[in-house]
């Protein structure tokens, strides 16, 4: 496993309450990266991160009293993302027809990944990001998304098969060239 320098698992340990600004400054980069994998573009990720931090500020007394403030923030981020996706889907259905997604045969690894992730339903995408980027256990993801552990396992398994089908070819292409 390559070291990514952000250590989400390591950062999720218990911590003493601190000022909101100290927490936010220490966490914003990690949240931003996770948000990027959830939404797929930098601008939306920035908005999502800012909204997450704003919600943390709004409920800071409660949030800072949590055993794992980072886990609390991750939960806020994921649920905000899912709520936003539901809202956007309603808007999309009401006002426009969806256009074509990004080209799946793009050689760039980043675009390939984002394209593959975009092919997953929002909840499945959130499960993948939480499990394989944030290193969260099946139990944690199930708690966060308010579903059963078996649902997390089966969704992640199906998602991995889909992602592998797209990423595997790109990976061979990228490393072979």
């Amino acid at each position, binding site marked *: 496993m390559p070291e990514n320098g952000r250590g989400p698992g390591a950062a999720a340990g218990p911590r003493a309450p601190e000022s*909101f600004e100290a927490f936010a400054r220490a966490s*914003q*980069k990690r949240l*931003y990266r996770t948000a990027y994998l959830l939404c797929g573009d*930098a601008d939306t990720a920035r908005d999502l991160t800012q909204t997450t*931090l*704003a919600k943390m500020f709004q409920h800071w007394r409660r949030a800072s009293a949590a055993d794992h403030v980072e886990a609390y923030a991750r939960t806020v981020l994921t649920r905000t993302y899912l709520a936003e996706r539901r809202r956007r889907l309603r808007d999309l259905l009401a006002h426009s027809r969806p256009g074509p997604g990004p080209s799946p045969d793009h050689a760039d690894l980043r675009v390939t*990944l984002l394209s593959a992730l975009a092919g997953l339903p929002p909840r499945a995408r959130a499960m993948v990001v939480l499990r394989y980027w944030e290193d969260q256990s099946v139990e944690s993801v199930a708690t966060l998304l308010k579903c059963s552990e078996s649902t997390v396992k089966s969704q992640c*398994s199906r998602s991995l098969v889909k992602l592998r089908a797209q990423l595997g070819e790109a990976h061979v292409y990228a490393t072979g060239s």
Partner: protein
Amino acid sequence: MGDNMPEDEHGSALLVREFMEHAVAELPPAHDLVPAAVVQGRRRRARVRVAVAAAVACAVGAVVFGSVVLPGGDGGGTVRPAASTTPSPRTSEEPAPYRTPVHVEPTSDTEDAMADLPPAERERQEEFQQRAAVLLDELLPDEVGLIRPVDLAVWRYQGETADGEVFGVVLSVRPSGSVPRSTRHGDTCPEDPGSLRGGSCEQGTLPDGTKVAAYRLLDGAPDRTYTRVRFAYGHSDAELAVYPDPDAKASAPVTAGQLLAVVRDRRFLDLVRYADANPMEKKQISVMGG
């Protein structure tokens, strides 16, 4: 990640993780999101308060309506004064946005910092700075950027533009001490414009008739100017100035006329009045240079 995971699934998970590493590595860095998040968070809190207040008002209204209209109520023929529909200022008021102060370390032992003030006085000055920053942001041209307090002194602020330009802003209300008012400033523009050495001056008056003169002057470097207005107010000397960004080699993006408009604004004068009545700066011990 690999808790009880079949081997081929584990391999897929590692592949996905590898792609994720690549994707975030190419992610452009985001600027500091914390100040904006704090402002957004305060607004969210305020909206919740307003919603709660509205719900309470609706509930009270429903009870009053029920007692008047429903059978058994005492509304039969009784005329009651209408409930006031004027919203309470407390519930309808949006909180002022919070401007995260810019931290500047004192550059010498003789330079006082707000951090050294007694807690109550420091809090008062910080509150004043917040009010001033928000108002200056509204009154100064957009080109000055977002106005934030500087935590070194109550009179220091700075404007930051989206392009990264930083303009020093001064809002000072300083007790004039024993300096005679007539010798404090040039309240009128000089008769000889040449004395301004390429700068300019614009004359104006405050609502109470006080004369003021706003200057746009060269800042040492050619074609780089700062803009300043000073005037006597009560027992104080007030000054508002915007300075250039030396790093960006950009002049203060404010004209003398725009600065005059700011100091004539009633809300600005309210701030000056408060600072005059409740001084936050040390008394002058000599005549300020013009």
